[in-house]
């Protein structure tokens, strides 16, 4: 694990593979998209802040199985309201659509991984620049 001020919580194997050596990655291979968001919510309840939007991207949350969320590495005393609202709204948004492709072949899964990775990657320069959070 790195000593960075942020960590990435993910169920995306590509994110683990790509970032594990440079960034702290909490990887939960078995998590569904919803499980992962609930896990992030538990982190928020314990005093971690969310650093990237949990609805990142316009790939609808009910389509892609992958999600990566960046949170602070350090726990704080108080629950952060902004983070809490954001994660609850994200979980709520998951339930909105019935459209849900179930047959996802390897190629599609790989592409979903790439997009999710790209979204979290787009936050890295900002997170690095930010320093202490």
């Amino acid at each position, binding site marked *: 694990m790195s000593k960075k001020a942020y960590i990435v919580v993910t169920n995306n194997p590509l994110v683990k593979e790509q970032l594990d050596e440079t960034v702290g990655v909490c990887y939960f291979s078995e998590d569904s998209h919803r499980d992962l968001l*609930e896990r992030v*919510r*538990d982190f928020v*309840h314990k005093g971690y802040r969310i650093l990237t939007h949990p609805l990142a991207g316009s790939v609808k949350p009910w389509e892609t199985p992958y999600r990566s969320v960046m949170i602070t590495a350090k726990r704080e005393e108080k629950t952060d309201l902004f983070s809490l*609202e954001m994660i*609850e*709204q994200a979980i*709520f948004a998951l339930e909105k659509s019935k459209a849900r492709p179930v047959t996802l072949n390897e190629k599609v899964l790989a592409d979903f991984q790439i997009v999710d990775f790209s979204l979290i990657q787009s936050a890295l320069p900002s997170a690095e620049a930010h320093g202490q959070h």
Partner: protein
Amino acid sequence: MSKFRVVHYINQFFAQIGGEEKADIPPEKREGAVGPGLAFNKAFGDEAEVVSTIVCGDSWFNENLEEAKNTILDMIREEKPDIFIAGPAFNAGRYGVACGSITEAVKTELGIPAVTGMYIENPGADMFREKVYIIETKNSAADMRKAAPKMAKLALKLAKGEEVGASAEDDYIPNGIRKNFFEKKRGSQRAVDMLLAKINGKPYTTEYPMPDFDRVDPQPAIKDLSKVTIALVTSGGIVPKGNPDHIESSSATKFGEYDITGVDDLTADGYETAHGGYDPVYANEDADRVVPVDVMREFEREGVIGKLHNKFYSTTGNGTAVASSKKFAEEIAKRLIADEVDAVLLTST
């Protein structure tokens, strides 16, 4: 084709029996159209006709709610109508509530297409807008000429089984269901129009009202704690072990009422949480962390408070998604008041 049969409900005033002094007359049925019914017959043209009119005093209806509903439903049933219309009630509060109640009853119990009408600020509008179609009218009876054709148009649509449009198209008060339709102007033009209205202090209507943030005035303080009964309520989902009522882990559709007579402490053996909105480990270890029965019992013994109510109420509601809990909160409040509870400590997770 034969005309659709319409039954129309109006109050004593619109039946020209009298004003407030006649508001206590019980329901009666008259043949054909009465008062505003004539405007409806005109609006229906040759497609439908008011075959009978039910008249009831506003006070009588509201003071004898169940009896009024049943009597009126019987009267309507006899007529075998295809359409039921009530009012419009404009800004008359009790008339609006009567129109809403009877329209809902006709819709759900008789399964007959039913439409009413009233002013947006009529208390009946808020009570029934999500249950029945309420055509939006102005605040005075002068609007009858415009209201009747709108109500007739929607009623005919329902009777023919045609699809109802968005609220803005079919002129009903928004019922919480978002519905697409094509506007006359494109969105950017509507935005510019709305902006100009906003700049110039003219009225405009947002196309998507934000969820509402209304307030309730605080109740007066309790003078003497040692004389009152206090109840515990939680949205943290604490339930007896095994979750006997099957309270859902989030956005529950029901609540639980649990007897704690003789219970001094919510132990891990007896209680757990059904809430899916937080890490349940800590509440499962000791449910007093969410519903402080142990502390309240001590205060009861010491006489700090008069009594801890022998039931606690529990449901699950995530912090921000509170809309759905409104209905059962009303029911919980009703029961607490019936049990002579004086105050409530509500815990949330």
